[in-house]
C-alpha cells in the first residue's frame, strides 16, 4: 500500500512538473526525485517480500493495510513538507523577499490594522 501511494504521488508530481515546465516556478522537480527514489526502493522491498511470502503478499491483514496506508500518506506529507520548505527558503519568485523587505512593509501594517 505504501508503494502504491508513493507511485501515485510520483506520477502526479511528474505530471505537475511537466505541466509547469519550462518556467518551473514551483520547483516541483524535488518531489519527483523524492517519490520516484522511494518508489524504486520500496519496489525492491516488495519483490523480496513477495519472494518470502508468495501470494500471501497480496492479501495482507486489514490492520497491516491500514498501517501501511497511514505510512504511505505520512510519507507523501513528508515529501510535501520538504518541498514547501525548500520552496520558501529558495524563494524562486522572490515573494518572501518582497514581503519582508519591500512591498511587505506596507502590506503587513495594513493587514495588522484590519485584523
Amino acid at each position, binding site marked *: 500500500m*505504501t508503494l502504491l501511494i*508513493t507511485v501515485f504521488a510520483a506520477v502526479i508530481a511528474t505530471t505537475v512538473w511537466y505541466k509547469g515546465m519550462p518556467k518551473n516556478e514551483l520547483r516541483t522537480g*524535488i518531489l519527483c*526525485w*523524492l*517519490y*520516484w*527514489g*522511494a*518508489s*524504486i*526502493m*520500496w*519496489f*525492491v*522491498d516488495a*519483490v*523480496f517480500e513477495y519472494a518470502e511470502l508468495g501470494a500471501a503478499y497480496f492479501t495482507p491483514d486489514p490492520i497491516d493495510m491500514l498501517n501501511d496506508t497511514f*505510512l504511505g500518506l*505520512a*510519507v507523501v506529507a*513528508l*515529501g510535501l513538507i*520538504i518541498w514547501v520548505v525548500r520552496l520558501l527558503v529558495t524563494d524562486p519568485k522572490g515573494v518572501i523577499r518582497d514581503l519582508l523587505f519591500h512591498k511587505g512593509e506596507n502590506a503587513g501594517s495594513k493587514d495588522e490594522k484590519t485584523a
Partner: protein
Amino acid sequence: MACFLVPTAEAIVTTAITKVEEKKEKSAPVEKSESTGVAKVSLARKLRWLNYLLFGGAILLAFEHLWHGEVVPYFPFLTAAANSEDTATMLHEMSTVGVSMALLITAVWVIMCITADVMARRENRRLSAVTVQK
C-alpha cells in the same frame, strides 16, 4: 532494518564524485557542437540526478524505518544493533535488499543517461539538418 543505509552510502560517494566533476567542468566547460551549438548533457548534471534519486529515496525510507521503530533517536540509533543476532539479520538485509535497492536505482539512472544521450544526439542531428537546409 537498515537497508536504506546502502543507498545513503552510495549517495554520499556519488555526491563527492559530483563535486569533483563540477570543479572539472567549471575549469573546462562542456564543449559545444560547433555546427549546431547544442551541448550534450554534462556528467555532473547526470550525477546530480543519481544523487537526488538516492537521497530522495533514502530520506523517505529512513522515515519508514523510524515509523516502524527500527531507527531510534538515541544510541545505537538502530534497534537491530542492540544484540548480535539482530545485527546479523540487519547486515544480511543490508547486503541483499539494500544492495539491490542501490543497484536498481543505479540501473534506472543509467537508462535515464542513455535516453538523455540519445535525445541529445537526435536534437543535434535535427539542428544540423536545419542548418544544412538554410
